[in-house]
């Protein structure tokens, strides 16, 4: 069994550590500090923690003000309330003004589970990605969450980081380095590429194992930096592997799949297949049941890779793709 770790738990821990070194960090929450784990920071630095109550727009506006006053605000709540409820204040007061606000939201995706569609955020990546000046990061495990936080605290500008309710398998050790705008080839391969983010990186690795049994070795890229996206790594993958499957715990509209398709369609045409929530809202259920229901299992990714390989065959015949 691979070790699992809570990435929101990691957020709380790391934030509390960073709070020692960075005296300008202030943390805001909207009545969910136990769930987002900002409570860990709140306990240690009560004077630098502000619970704004159930009022996400006010929280974001206040965070923007803190940034203007030279502080480094981290604002947290559930992903849908952070990015959805407070979207226009984020647009105007954070992104348009280009101020140094970090939004770190928990409960991204459908693995929120039993709370149901009202609480499952399948739109946050799209909502944040569309904003100029916004950096969008979806860490794949707790180690990466820590590295991301250590990076963005020194970056001056708006950042959105998505975390999740469920624990993620630990994929990286301490030697891993995160860079804004860079993807990570987490497994080498030449037969198609799987580009994933967040929890779906683990699912992609499991899909890679399944495909391995068929003698197929896909390249697997962790695209935690969704914006700016790593164009070079995508073009290289397209050229060298000839087909791409994207996998995200988000709507197939506007998220990682869209971002990848945008790059591929402009830079290097290869077949792309998007694994994600197929333009519908979430429902109540257990995280694992929901992953199955919404087609986000390793088997679903495996099938998509086979499909892409099939399509690639045609494109090779048609366009002599790959003949040197």
């Amino acid at each position, binding site marked *: 069994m691979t070790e699992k770790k809570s990435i929101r738990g990691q957020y709380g821990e790391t934030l509390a550590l960073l709070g020692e070194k960075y005296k300008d960090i202030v943390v805001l929450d909207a009545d*969910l500090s136990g769930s987002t784990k900002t409570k860990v920071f709140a306990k240690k630095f009560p004077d630098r923690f502000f619970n704004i*109550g*159930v009022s996400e*727009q006010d929280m974001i506006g206040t965070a923007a003000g803190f940034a203007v006053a030279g502080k480094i605000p981290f604002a947290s709540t559930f992903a849908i309330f952070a990015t959805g409820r407070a979207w226009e204040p984020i647009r105007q007061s954070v992104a348009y003004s280009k101020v140094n606000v970090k939004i770190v939201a928990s409960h991204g995706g459908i693995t929120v589970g039993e709370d149901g*569609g009202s609480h499952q955020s399948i739109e946050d990546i799209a909502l944040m990605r569309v904003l100029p000046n916004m950096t969008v990061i979806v860490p794949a495990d707790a180690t990466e969450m820590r590295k991301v936080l250590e990076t963005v605290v020194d970056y001056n500008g708006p950042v959105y980081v998505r975390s999740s309710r469920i624990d993620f398998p630990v994929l990286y050790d301490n030697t891993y380095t995160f860079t804004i705008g860079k993807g990570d080839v987490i497994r080498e391969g030449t037969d198609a590429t799987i580009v994933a983010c967040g929890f779906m990186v683990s699912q992609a690795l499991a899909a890679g194992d399944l495909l391995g049994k068929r003698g197929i070795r896909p390249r697997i890229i962790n695209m935690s930096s969704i914006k700016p996206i790593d164009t070079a790594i995508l073009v290289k993958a397209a050229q060298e592997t000839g087909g791409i499957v994207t996998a995200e715990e988000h709507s197939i509209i506007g998220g990682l799949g869209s971002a990848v398709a945008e790059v591929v369609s402009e830079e290097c045409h290869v077949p792309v297949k998007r694994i994600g929530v197929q333009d519908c809202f979430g*429902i109540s259920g257990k995280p694992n*049941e929901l992953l199955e229901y919404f087609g986000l299992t390793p088997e679903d990714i495996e099938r998509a890779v086979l499909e892409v390989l099939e399509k690639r065959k045609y494109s090779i015949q048609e366009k002599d793709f790959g003949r040197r």
Partner: protein
Amino acid sequence: MQWSREEALKRLPEEARQIRIEILKMLHQSGSGHTGGSLSATDLVTALFFTELRHKPEDSNWEGRDRFVLSKGHAAPLYYAVLSRLGYIKAEELCRLRKMCCMLQGHPDSKSTPGVEISTGSLGQGLSIANGIALGLRLNKSDARTYVLLGDGEVQEGMVWEAAMTSAHYKIDNLCAILDRNGLQIDGAVEEIMSIEPLADKWKAFGWHVINIDGHRFEEILDAFEAAKEVNGKPTIIIAKTVKGKGVSIFENKVKYHGAAPNDEELEQALKELGHKKL
């Protein structure tokens, strides 16, 4: 359904007791969900549905019905227990709360549950919706009334106060808001997290008629509903002082049980306190 006042005062305590039992069994089955805020509002919502609302469980879309919006959508178990006892949904559905492809979603979903007017769960939106319903009914020359249940943490949302202005500005007097003043939200006591006092004065200043009651005394609840109907040219809010987790000592006034379902032991103790024999 509509009981006379006398009959209601006799029967409501027992009805509310049964509903609390249903809520706890349902939450225990599902293993997750919101205990505290369902129990604090049980007496209010039971009284509303059994004595005040004009509705037809066998025809949930009946045009003449009074409307109800559960703005604090996390009290879904309460809503479902009431809808089940009234016959909107089958009793056997209750044990499927929050399960895959069930009718009873974690938060009320009008697409899947008969009797639910609109989906809620994201706090702060219900009063605006209720305004729209009430204004629509007024345009339709309907005498149906609209009720909306708000949480006290919920009123920290700015949208509630935007809506509060709208209700008063348009003199929406076919609207009655009920505020479940249980004093707690998720992170702690409302007054410690983000003070909302002086609450009655705020609503008054926003142009509302305010009625303060004990939200567990049925006489006061029924009187308040009656009084609200008599108010002309103004919206009415009933600020009901309640106890979060009401009815079960281990849940009462405990922040922890905002979003925690009872485990086996807790259910057993709870049912014992509520005088229920065995599962």
